[in-house]
């Protein structure tokens, strides 16, 4: 059980390539996931049964399925159907990285949907009533009151999910995407030294995760600045947080009636 610094140094360029792939993958999915999750969360609690049930089915299927199966599903499944064809779909599904983005987005977005939904539910009913009673239209009540507050309530849970997801990208090598973990494995196969590459990769992930954690904590502090009490008052009114460890999973529930 030894660590070979020379090997570690030598593998740095490849590792950095792998790290870049990991970051690119994670960033794309996080962005896409958030974009999809907000309308999905609204659909989840919608009064239209079709919307509500479709959104619920989406969440149940893509949250309950392990990411690896989704990756196979997209890459081998759609890849088989569309891969050989010409055109957009063919190009899309024969590209392993894009398949990874799609597969992970399906999974990550379903978690984020539940987090956004939890955040929306956590907004005290009285605030929404006050806004409505002031004559503000429902669309503005949603955009200016419910959503900003939902973001603050759901932030801790969202941070947890982003971090968990970033770590989860490590399996992407099963569909031939060369990320940081794949690079580490390749070095192991070449050198028969498991510890150096794996520990080096672990170190990279550890740094990445902690950078994320610190960055998100800054966002949290900035968004919640309004909670800091006046020194003279000596106390702050706590915002109910939906934070739980690890990524909180709301019960697989039925959509709102």
């Amino acid at each position, binding site marked *: *059980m030894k660590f070979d610094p020379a090997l570690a140094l030598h593998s740095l360029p490849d590792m950095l390539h792998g790290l870049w792939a990991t970051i690119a993958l994670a960033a794309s999915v996080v962005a896409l996931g958030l974009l999809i999750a907000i309308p999905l969360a609204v659909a989840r609690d919608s009064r239209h049964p079709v919307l509500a049930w479709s959104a619920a089915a989406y969440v*149940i*299927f893509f949250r*309950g*399925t*392990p*990411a*690896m*199966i*989704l990756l*196979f*599903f997209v890459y*081998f*499944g759609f890849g*088989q159907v569309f891969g050989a064809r010409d055109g957009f779909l063919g190009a899309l599904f024969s590209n392993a990285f894009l398949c990874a983005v799609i597969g992970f987005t399906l999974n990550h977005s379903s978690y984020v949907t539940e987090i956004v939904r939890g955040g929306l539910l956590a907004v005290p*009913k009285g605030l929404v009533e006050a806004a409505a009673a002031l004559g503000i239209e429902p669309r503005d009540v949603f955009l200016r009151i419910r959503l900003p507050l939902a973001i603050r309530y759901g932030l801790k849970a969202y941070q947890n999910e982003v971090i968990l997801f970033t*770590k*989860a*990208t*490590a*399996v992407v*090598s*099963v569909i031939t995407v060369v990320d940081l*973990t794949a690079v*580490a*494995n390749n070095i*192991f196969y070449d050198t028969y030294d*498991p*510890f150096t590459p*794996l*520990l080096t*990769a*672990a170190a990279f*992930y*550890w740094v990445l*995760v*902690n950078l994320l954690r610190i960055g998100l904590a800054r966002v949290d502090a900035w968004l919640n600045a309004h909670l800091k009490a006046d020194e003279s008052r000596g106390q702050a009114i706590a915002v109910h947080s939906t934070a*739980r*460890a*690890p*990524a*909180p*999973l709301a*019960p*697989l529930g039925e959509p709102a009636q």
Partner: protein
Amino acid sequence: MPLQDLLGYLAQLLGGAAITVELAFSGYACALTVGTAWALLRRLDNPVGNAAWRAYASIFMGVPSVLVIFLFYYGGSAIIGGLVGIVGLRPRVDVSPFAAGLAALTVVQGAYSAEVISGAMRNVPRGQFEAARALGIRPYQVWWYVIMPQVARLALPGLTNIWVSVLKDTTLVALAGLNEIVARSRTAAGATKEPFLFFIAAALFFIVFSAATLKFSAGIERRLDRGIARPVSAGAEA
């Protein structure tokens, strides 16, 4: 593709599911044990213990589970050899994928469990301890009859989440060669050229199993919540 062959492969999936469940249950049990141990250690509030926890938590919650699995699988023999070598023995132990997966799940999910259980312990009102002691109940009885039931109730949602994580993380062990349900679904999909059938079947297994877990957990929650006041829902009001 003859129906018989398809059914044969589906039966294979079931075999894989059995392995998945076996790994999940053992992993979860071990993780809870490790988690409880850490939670109790943290209560002692000993500087060395606290530092050890912070290092452990930072490492195992800061790196992907897959890497831990690889480390234990590829490096497991060397690790065990090294540890046991301190005593002078030089065993040749091969670590199976199942064992590596079990160890990794224990270590990683143990950290998350420790957080949930610690948090639950902290949230039991201090007054509960004090009232029980004031009544003359002995410390270990206080823990068993008064505190742990409340810890269980508070920890339940978090521990349920961890169970679902454990269940899904078993799929990672396929990367170390464990022939569990996802690995088998991939084999079947490749052999039969029916990817959707087998991947959806595997997905359904996890979905149904998770849903069953959540129902079960809700049932336990109802039992544990007996007697706990629920806020009256806003409906009829003055």
